[in-house]
């Protein structure tokens, strides 16, 4: 029933879909040991679009996000079933190197987690290990551009050698975003990137996400419905491991189809 629902939602503009699907998930089930965490989820992530995953705590939205770049591989008891495709290629195929996949599908975590190295080294790490640059000048350029796009450049350009951990919480999160951008991903996954930040830092991050949409497909998990409404074009509502509803953000927030969505966005549970 939900699959049909989603299809009807995405089918509203078939032209756009056929052109712009970046990632697609079909019949995805995730198990933690015996716990069935994600149940038969079908989602299409569009290019140059911000997709928000919302839902109450423990609904599986972060778990699903981690499936998109196979971060769940690092958890021994986690099992993923179903098809997830990036540009039409199955990312769980045995031939796919998760390391390569994660270079294309970048991730920003809930808590800022800069490496305990200099600001420069933090940003330069991705390009270095993936061999994206040929010389120091190019690397400098990538670092500067990434920091600029994360709107951190002005604040740190004079102290690139300072440790990344010496920055404030909001700056650290922007550094992590710059670090993710520097690897030149095609999809950027953000797991509640603003949850530990104050409103000002949050606003800057949201602006940033909106800018990033020009180049990447962005998927953001958030607890804040306002944030989802502000930054995203598409919204998916998860509940108890089910994808309840997926559609245009304006539609989800103004005219939800499912009663549970209605209840959640109006604050009746969650």
């Amino acid at each position, binding site marked *: 029933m939900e699959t049909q629902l989603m299809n009807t939602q995405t089918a509203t503009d078939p032209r756009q879909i056929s052109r712009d699907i970046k990632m697609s998930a079909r019949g995805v089930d995730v198990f933690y040991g015996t716990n069935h965490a994600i149940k038969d989820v079908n989602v299409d992530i569009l290019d140059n679009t911000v997709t928000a995953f919302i839902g109450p705590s423990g609904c599986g939205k972060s778990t699903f996000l981690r499936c998109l770049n196979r*971060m769940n591989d690092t958890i*021994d008891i986690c099992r993923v079933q179903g098809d997830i495709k990036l540009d039409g290629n199955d990312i769980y195929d045995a031939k796919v190197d998760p*390391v390569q996949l994660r*270079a294309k599908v970048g991730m*920003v975590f809930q808590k800022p987690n800069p490496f*305990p190295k200099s600001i420069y080294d933090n940003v330069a790490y991705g390009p270095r290990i993936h061999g994206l640059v040929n010389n120091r000048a190019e690397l400098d350029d990538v670092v500067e551009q990434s920091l600029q796009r994360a709107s951190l450049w002005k604040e740190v350009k004079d102290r690139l050698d300072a440790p990344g951990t010496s920055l404030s919480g909001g700056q650290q999160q922007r550094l992590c975003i710059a670090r993710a951008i520097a*690897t030149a991903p095609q999809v950027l996954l953000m797991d509640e990137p603003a949850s530990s930040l104050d409103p000002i830092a949050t606003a800057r991050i949201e602006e940033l996400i909106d800018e990033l949409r020009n180049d990447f497909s962005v998927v953001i998990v958030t607890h804040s419905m306002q944030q989802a409404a502000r930054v995203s074009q598409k919204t998916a509502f998860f509940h108890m491991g089910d994808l309840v509803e997926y559609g245009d953000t304006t539609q989800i927030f103004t005219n939800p189809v499912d009663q549970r969505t209605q209840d959640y966005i109006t604050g009746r549970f969650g």
Partner: protein
Amino acid sequence: MVSLTKLSLRHDSAQNTARLKRRRAAEKRLKFYGLAAIVVSALALFTLVWSVAGKAGMALTETYVSMSIPLHTAELDPDATGDPAAIGRANFDGFVKDLLKGEFPYASGRSERRELYDILSSGAAFELRDRVMADPALIGQTVEHSLLASDLVDLYLKGDFGQLIELPATGFMHLTPEGDSVSVQFDSPILIEAMDALRLSLREQARQTRRQASYEENGRAFYDAALAEAETDADRADAEAQITARTAARDVLLAQAQAFEDQADASGLDAELGLDSPSILVHTGDVWLHMTHINASGGRAEVWGELEENLEIQPGQWRAAFTELSSHQRKITDLQIAIVETLRDNGQIETRFNARFFTSGDSREAELAGIWGAVVGTFWTMLVTILLAFPLGAAAAIYLEEFAPKTRITGFIEVNINNLAAVPSIVFGLLGLSVFIGFFGVPRSAPLAGGLVLAVMTLPTIIIAARASIQAVPPSIRDAALGLGASKIQTAFHHVMPLAMPGILTGTIIGMARALGETAPLIMIGMVAFIVDIPTGITDNATVLPVQVFRWADFPERAFEYRTAAAICVLLVFLVLMNGFAVFLRKRFERRW
């Protein structure tokens, strides 16, 4: 059912106030226990360092006897070749002994000669030879040379065998030659003290003799009773014979005791100075008078030196002294004391910083023994240990933590690693003996074998500490690296390892410190051998500092006791240096973030 609002009233109840009071008292007590524990351990440490360092100080100087030595061509280079090899074959040992004989002709008997030769170290002749071989032109000249004194002389001069105590001597001293010896008359408080001591000793002898007599008396009483109960003639005869013998023995002993007492009470006591009473030495010019018998106004003495014609010695021309310890209580003999004192009076005794101790290898002679061989051996052994144990331990830890699937086999391996850390070190020595030396043919007594054994012993410690510190690296760092597309190996080596490095280094220090102090496993693999040469590599025969300490502590010579203490200090310095280096490394790694 309690009411929560009423519950809050209990905060101020009397019962609660008392409870709070007990809690505060308990906190205070704990604080006191902690403080007391710290004070006690600080005191223990201080005492240890104090006693060890105090003894080690005795080993820091060495004594030389400086002499003008005429290097006769006839004896040292009879063919006048000037060839160092030919000179090296000359009998320098005999030459040096002749030199001593020339200086102290009065040491003429066999045992006196031996006492005389014991003044100098057996290494003294070698050093003279080396000097002459390096410069053959010296032959034919008279050179000033400092000959290394033996440990006996060194310890005597450091006061280890008691002092030679001089008391004021006034008045004339009269000498009357009596055959080999000389009768001496002088007045000194030494005589009064010596006579008192003699009397005390005689009374003690009398007391002991009387006790022996009482044993005989007891025996006689026993056979008296046996005689009364005897039934056969044979028994009776036997008992009677016993009684006669016992009575005779008792009477002899009683007479002896009486004689001792009479001697002690006599005003004109003239007695032999035994080996268990302090010796008295009288000194005039270059001549020493060694008192053999004393009485209230002098006594008889052995003469060491040539007496002059004039036998009336003026006040100020003679000195009398006694030794603090009796001959039994010290290793140095009276003759040797006289010789050393003569040398000291002539300004021929030199004290130098004992550089030899820090630059030479082991020796059977305490004064020649040095620590450098053990230091170098320790260095090579520790080098092998750290080169093996650190990479292996870190790699094992990172594999177990970051890569190994959590299966039963890895669980089993983990348990075994933890158990290995508690295995007695001597077991590792056995393993080294049978596996490394027996099976793989690693050279025995070599730092390679020792390093291998210690590395195996240290591995569990390093692995456990490294795993703990790898576990302590926040998972968010791993996520960050993996999320950027770093492989597991890149994540481990670029991010986890550097963060875990201080902890891994701490574990390595702990392991190395244990290895540095380890003796038992090295004894098993033969690193306890007597090795004079400084090892030049990991396959040379070598020993290490703790084993050297163990060996020296086992030697009976007093001088080795001080060298043992000094070796312990060197070991401690080695440990502090190693720890300092590790702390420096830690600080460097920590500063990077």
